[in-house]
């Protein structure tokens, strides 16, 4: 199997979708987070609440939106309020799960979506936090989605946009931080603020599941080998995912 096949985005979406519990209230960003939530809806999690920062609550988009304000986000939604309504809900603890991604992640679950290189002399300026900083701190738990691209799994992110374990001070009123990290190959749970490999697809070896990632990764004694879903699932995911495979 080629790396390309092992790292098709629908695989990450499928693994991510399984982490969303029934009735969970989920703050969803554009791209991979939205894709995972949409897969969960289609895998029988009918009662999860999908929330977009533009003000849409109980969304059920029929195709992957480019923007949190795209027409498909509102189509069929149960509630359209404003951005303040959504972030107020987030800050008062009403969001169960935030799904985030970024350009870089470290082993504590810190995410960088601001700059590559030093802040004042960046090699590359990225779009910035968006709602990611806010979600990382305020959602009751966080899921990180990151394709298995080893150069994005760094020892130390260049800029902590979205604080993971250690960088956030555990004050009252904040969430519990990253609970799980999902790649195109595997699932890592954070135990004592460190990633533990808890599952990977059964079409690759445990070594392949973390291949090239320069972290100290513990392997769970209960490591699960997950069957790759039926090709019809992959086809279903691809049918609404636009250019994201």
């Amino acid at each position, binding site marked *: 199997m080629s790396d390309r096949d092992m790292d098709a985005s629908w695989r990450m979406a499928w693994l991510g979708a399984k982490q969303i519990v029934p009735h969970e209230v989920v703050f969803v960003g554009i791209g991979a987070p939205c894709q995972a939530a949409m897969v969960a809806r289609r895998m029988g999690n009918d009662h999860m609440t999908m929330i977009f920062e533009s*003000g849409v609550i109980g969304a059920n988009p029929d195709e992957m939106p*480019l923007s949190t304000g*795209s027409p498909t986000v509102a189509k069929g939604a149960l509630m359209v309020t*404003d951005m*303040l309504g959504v972030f107020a809900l987030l800050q008062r603890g009403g969001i169960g799960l935030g799904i985030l991604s970024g350009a870089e992640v470290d082993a504590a679950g810190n995410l960088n979506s601001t700059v590559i290189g030093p802040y004042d002399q*960046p090699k590359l300026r990225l779009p910035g936090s968006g*709602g990611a*900083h806010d979600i990382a*701190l305020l959602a009751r738990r966080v899921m990180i989605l990151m394709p298995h691209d080893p150069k994005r799994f760094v020892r130390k992110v260049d800029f902590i946009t979205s604080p993971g374990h250690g960088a956030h001070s555990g004050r009252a009123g904040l969430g519990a931080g990253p609970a799980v990290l999902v790649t195109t190959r595997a699932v890592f749970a954070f135990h004592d603020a460190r990633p533990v490999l808890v599952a990977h697809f059964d079409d690759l070896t445990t070594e392949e599941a973390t291949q090239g990632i320069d972290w100290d990764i513990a392997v769970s004694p209960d490591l699960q080998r997950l069957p790759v879903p039926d090709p019809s699932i992959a086809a279903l995911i691809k049918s609404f995912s636009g250019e994201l495979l």
Partner: protein
Amino acid sequence: CRVKFGWYGNPGIGLSHVLRRAVADGSLTVEETSNFGLLLGLHAARLGVPFLPARILLDGDMPAQAVGTSRVECPFTGERLSAVAAIRPDVALIHAQQADAAGNVQLWGIKGDTIEGAEASRRVICTVERIVPSDVIAQSPSNTVLSASMVTAVALAPMGAYPSYVEGFYGRDDAAYRAFESLSRKANLLADYIKTTVHDPASHEEFVAAMQAGRNGDV
């Protein structure tokens, strides 16, 4: 030149090449914040107070770069909170479905932070898809988002949100955003595009037509 934003990119497509170049060549200073940080700054101005307390912008590397963020202690609980300074723009530029000639503006569908930004600003200039009589406004007063006293000027500009969309009028032209990804990669390509779509057109209608042509690579 200085810009404050929570997120600056091409939605769903990628980073902004314009921002990337401007930061690299030092022509632009960024005031870092998050989407909620920006929103709270506008909300403070809307509420008429100089700051609002929050639980964000105290952790990680954002606080060091977030201009207009300080700290405040809750006088009741002693909790350590961030203080987000009010953002009071000189002018807000917004687009809506309709308004009457007096300036009562109606907007429906996904509103994001449009109203927060407008009410935070000293002046509001609003373009609309159509001008309607005041009695049409009064038929659905819950759709009115800004009253005439809050609005400096209203201008008729059909297709004024393009390539974005207006609920009930036209859809989002996702292809135009994708085309912008390529044509904004090089400064000279972008300059050509701006000349053709912004400077050359003699009217609003020509501007819209040039924008629509541009997304097909016809520029």
